[in-house]
């Protein structure tokens, strides 16, 4: 059998039914795709989305939650407002300024055969457990993720998950106890996963381990701030940040440039990086000090129990009322426009007769908090965390749900660096306390 025939037979889509656009999946994906106003003008810049550089930053966070066995999609929309602009230098800025003065170099050059080792603590599984029809609780499992990455991006990732159920809320824990404290339903073989990555294993899910090459970044805080503000935190452009840090141009939850700048600077400080210098670390802290709206939390304990100086950035979203206009066209497809804050008028009416139904969509007030904990001695970033308040939100199910709402849980996420350092093989770990 020749290679091409074998390739055709290995097509993962070959034996899978592809849903039609009119199926439940097709309709729910359609609704998610059109959740934003079409052709909206960015209220901040007054520009047209056709211009790539001035394209409005996407202010909508969409999370798909498979809530029902039929995989009915629920669209979660959290809209973040710009942070406080032009506030006076804060205690947080002063703290960052002091950290900038004390910033030291961490060992970040990698020779042949050397690996950068990072051990992080973070949730590895989240499981929604159904106790009875209509009743469920969320549990999560914590894991330790060890990565070894060489200068060429090759390396190894070992994820070790603790099977003890953990809970984001007291309510979830109570529901778990009421259900008889069942063990987490993770097959034992899945608790430890090992992933080997070669230099050519880029792209796809087994992407290269992010290792930021920061050697070309400017150490002048103003210039650095400009570089990090390039690109779009959630746009469709790739590699608009300099090579070496372009992987920071990921889909972000940030609505504002300040928030994106904050996240990127924190990511670079948290690493792993190669080519880091004390001057660049100082500049990164100065960039953070200049981000409007940061606040000092004082001594803070991170999710892994490490103690340090906590700093947070909060994005607020007031309650909002919008309308969902559903047009049902003769073919059965439904187009909807969410109108909230942005006035939207279709440039032309529909070309075919349609029925239009309008629903009121209410988005409650919410906040997203980004918290960073820094070790004041080593000036390393111990952890970064995102949390949402309130932790559950009613979300409109849009046209498909005929304007009904559903509660969706917003779970916090975090990444805690437990230890890191340069080691001589992809199985070695740095000595304790390093």
């Amino acid at each position, binding site marked *: 059998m020749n290679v091409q025939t074998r*390739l055709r037979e290995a097509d993962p889509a070959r034996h899978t039914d592809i849903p039609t656009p009119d199926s439940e999946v097709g309709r729910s994906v359609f609704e998610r795709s059109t959740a934003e106003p079409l052709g909206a003008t960015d209220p901040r810049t007054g520009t047209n989305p056709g211009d790539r550089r001035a394209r409005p930053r996407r202010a909508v966070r969409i999370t798909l939650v498979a809530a029902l066995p039929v995989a009915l999609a629920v669209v979660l929309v959290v809209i973040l407002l710009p942070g406080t602009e032009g506030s006076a230098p804060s205690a947080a800025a002063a703290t960052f300024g002091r950290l900038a003065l004390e910033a030291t170099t961490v060992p970040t050059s990698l020779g042949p055969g050397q690996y950068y080792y990072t051990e992080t603590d973070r949730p590895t599984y989240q499981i929604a457990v159904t106790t009875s029809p209509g009743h469920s609780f969320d549990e999560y499992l914590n894991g330790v993720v060890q990565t070894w990455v060489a200068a060429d991006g090759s390396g190894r990732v070992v994820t070790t998950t603790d099977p003890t159920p953990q809970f984001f809320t007291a309510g979830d824990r109570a529901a778990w106890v009421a259900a008889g404290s069942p063990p987490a339903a993770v097959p034992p073989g899945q608790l430890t996963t090992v992933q080997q990555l070669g230099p050519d294993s880029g792209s796809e899910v087994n992407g290269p381990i992010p290792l930021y090459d920061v050697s070309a970044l400017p150490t002048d805080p103003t210039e650095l701030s400009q570089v990090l503000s390039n690109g779009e935190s959630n746009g469709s452009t790739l590699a608009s940040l300099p090579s070496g840090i372009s992987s920071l141009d990921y889909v972000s939850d940030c609505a504002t440039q300040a928030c994106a700048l904050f996240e990127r600077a924190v990511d670079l400080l948290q690493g792993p990086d190669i080519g880091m210098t004390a001057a660049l670390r100082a500049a990164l802290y100065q960039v953070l000090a200049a981000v409007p709206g940061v606040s000092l939390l004082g001594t803070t304990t991170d999710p892994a129990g490490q103690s340090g100086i906590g700093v947070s950035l909060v994005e607020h979203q007031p309650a909002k009322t919008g309308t969902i206009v559903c047009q049902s066209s003769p073919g059965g*497809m439904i187009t909807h426009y969410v109108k909230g804050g942005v006035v939207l008028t279709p440039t032309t009416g529909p070309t075919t007769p349609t029925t239009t139904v309008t629903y009121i969509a209410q988005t409650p007030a919410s906040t997203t908090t980004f918290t960073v904990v820094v070790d004041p001695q080593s000036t390393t970033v111990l952890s970064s965390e995102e949390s949402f308040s309130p932790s559950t939100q009613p979300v409109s199910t849009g046209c498909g749900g005929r304007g009904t709402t559903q509660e969706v849980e917003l779970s916090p996420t975090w990444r805690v660096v437990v230890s890191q350092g340069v080691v001589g093989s992809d199985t070695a770990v740095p000595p304790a306390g390093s």
Partner: protein
Amino acid sequence: MPGEDLPGRFEQLYRDHFGAIYAYALRRSDPADVHDLVAEVFATAWRRMPDVPAPPEDRLWLYGVAWRTLARQQRTDRRRHRLVMKLQQSARAPAEAGPYDRTPAGELVEALRGLRPENREVVRLIVWEQLTHAEVALVLGCSANAVAIRWHRALRRLRRDLGVDPRPHPSPTLCAPPPIAGEER
């Protein structure tokens, strides 16, 4: 263009190519991420309707968006973390597990995995999406000649890895990550 029925055009685009983009995503993503990828591709089209070319190039434009979206989604540990956090309903492996682990043709899958990402994408677009070299060139933003060279190299490498031709061959990168057609103009 002003006065154009963009919602109508979008709906037609969606009807015409939902299946193709769904299959594309299925072939390259973790199953849990297929819907996310398809929605992201069409959300990009929805935002950029004035830039979407007329048929038959509209499908190629969508493939280009999908390729870039996939690359971006998978670039960071952080993003992967978010994907893991989204898992609900039942316990399952973290998103780090590759998309091909579950397909039966293990040897071929391993061989495909051994290709450089851009060569692998050429193979997939030609064999699975059944595009011509010229169409692949449009999707990936390189010349048809570069596509032909990549295709040739990829096949040679696959034959070698599958035991037909044991000689190793270097395969330098021929194209940069592609821009969305029309985006940079």
